[in-house]
């Protein structure tokens, strides 16, 4: 993506800040562009020391495809969980699954954990200190290994392709 420079240590964050500022002000007047621009440059400069170095997005188009896929899955997840909650028979098969991670960087792992929470019947509960195992609670799962395989194929593989080619 855009390479960082001295005055723009985090160009993507700066762009996001500017966009959020304009959206919140709900105006594209010149004054708002200037004020937003100043904030977009000043905020990253001030808080830069607190940020971990973020991995570069190597394949932005795959990221867009990933986001769309997750959005669709969120709708499916909601319908499935609603069905499980409303099911009067109440035959849930909950499980705590130890998911072996192949991702190594913190930021992709965070995205994966958030995705797992937002998608069908699973909540990420704990990342072990060694960063290799994610503890996942599933609401209703028939086959634990199939669940691990699905998460790997559907979410972790694309994330690896996006961040760690």
């Amino acid at each position, binding site marked *: 993506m855009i390479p960082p420079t001295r005055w723009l240590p985090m160009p993507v964050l700066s762009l996001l800040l500017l966009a959020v500022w304009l959206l919140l002000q709900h105006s594209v007047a010149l004054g708002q562009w200037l004020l937003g621009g100043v904030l977009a440059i000043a905020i990253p400069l001030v808080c830069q020391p607190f940020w971990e170095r973020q991995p570069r997005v190597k394949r932005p188009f795959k990221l867009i495809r990933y986001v769309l896929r997750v959005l669709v899955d969120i709708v499916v997840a909601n319908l499935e969980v609603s069905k499980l909650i409303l099911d009067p028979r109440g035959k849930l*098969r909950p499980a705590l699954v130890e998911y072996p991670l192949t991702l190594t960087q913190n930021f992709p792992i965070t995205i994966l954990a958030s995705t797992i929470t937002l998608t069908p019947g699973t909540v990420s509960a704990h990342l072990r200190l060694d960063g290799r195992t994610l503890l996942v609670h599933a609401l209703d799962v028939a086959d634990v290994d199939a669940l691990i395989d699905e998460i790997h194929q559907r979410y972790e593989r694309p994330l690896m392709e996006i961040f760690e080619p």
Partner: protein
Amino acid sequence: MLDSILEGVIAFMLIAGGAFAFIGSLGLTHLKDFYMRLHGPSKTTTLGVGCTLLGSSLYFSLQGGPVVQELLITVFAFITAPVSAHMLAKSALHHKLKPDPRTRGNPIELESEKPKHAVEEAPQGNSPLP
């Protein structure tokens, strides 16, 4: 014609949002253990909020120029909901909250504290009671 279709879409969004929020809350009261109850608010409510905000965004866009602040709220809700759910589950694991007996899988985080205490007390030289 177009207006009534759009109004129908807005009404559908509001009702769907309300229904999802209701089902999420129902899950919160209904499910058996803490870990299962987490699923309700972390998922269903996100879509509940998302649908309601989409409806609101459409409605106010019809009144005047396009309104997009609602999109920002949706994005923030989608980013923060999983984090809070993760922290809640993590603290539950920390307190070794017992999951429902039907739950499969027994991670080390949930094992009873007794052996840990035995290891901690051993170096203090307390002689074991006869």
